[in-house]
């Protein structure tokens, strides 16, 4: 393309604008990804859920429940007739705070129980997303069992924490 030809300046502007726009679009996508990662960190490592898992772990150890559950892949600790102490704690928490404990699971540290819970939760996209996230993050060999808590805080979001307990029953 020769200089002094008609349209050269416009061609320059279009090419430069395309390059700048591409960079800005990548910047926008990265910004959204960063914002989403921050949000995910807050929802999957929630402080209130963490203290609930620790209290549940204390209940299981105090009442010698771990031996009872040793043959099971997982237990829904809020189901009827599974663990009255955990249900008592859940009722206390739900009645006295503005948060709600939705789910508490005890499970062996393995991908199989996670898949079993995943297959039960057909319509629960939040829990499915969290389980998928856990499967990539946890090194199952390092731990003996896990306790997962799901918590609601009055808005539409749900919050999670997974307590990973090693051989000495200490997290």
């Amino acid at each position: 393309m020769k200089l002094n030809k008609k349209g050269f300046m416009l061609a320059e502007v279009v090419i430069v604008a395309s390059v700048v726009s591409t960079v800005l679009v990548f910047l926008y996508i990265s910004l959204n990804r960063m914002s989403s990662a921050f949000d995910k960190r807050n929802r999957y490592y929630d402080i209130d859920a963490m203290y609930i898992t620790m209290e549940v772990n204390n209940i299981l150890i105090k009442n010698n429940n771990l031996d009872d559950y040793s043959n099971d892949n997982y237990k829904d600790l809020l189901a009827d007739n599974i663990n009255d102490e955990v249900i008592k704690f859940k009722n206390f928490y739900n009645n006295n705070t503005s948060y709600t404990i939705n789910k508490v699971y005890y499970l062996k540290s393995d991908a199989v129980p996670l898949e079993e819970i995943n297959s039960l939760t057909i319509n629960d996209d939040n829990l499915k997303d969290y389980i998928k996230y856990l499967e990539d993050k946890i090194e199952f060999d390092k731990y003996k069992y896990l306790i997962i808590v799901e918590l609601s805080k009055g808005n539409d979001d749900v919050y999670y924490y997974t307590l990973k307990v090693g051989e000495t029953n200490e997290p």
Partner: protein
Amino acid sequence: MNLNRRGYLAVEVILASVVAISIAIFLMEITIKLVNVTDDAYIDTEILTDKALITKNIKKLLEDDIEENGGISSITCTDTSCQINFCSNSSSIELDNNNQITYNGTNNYDKTLNKNLSNIKITTNKTGNIDNGDYVLFKITADSKFTKENFEANIIVYNNKTC
């Protein structure tokens, strides 16, 4: 449409200006969004850190005092403080005018809350006599102007009472 050189240049300048202004507006919008997201994330992180530190430290000190002093026998509270009587000692959780929360017990702890929090209150689930085997909850709540949730730190301890 046949344009001479000047006419063509005028069209080029107009089109180039439109493209440049569109890019400038897009850039400004991205910058404003980045600043807002970063500010929100910063305040969220500060408030979450306050919550984590207060919950962890006061819970630990309370549990230590419960073990050393025979459990909680009774609690009395106002809006800004709770007096905790153990079997053989006492402690308190207090709020002062500078948004500072203090635990005064066998060991002391204090933490100044984020200045964006207001209307801070300290409450408990039960006042008066506390029984053995009860869960006791101390709740520190505050209004937050800059985050979607209000501040709520729930400190729960299990009462092993021996008196």
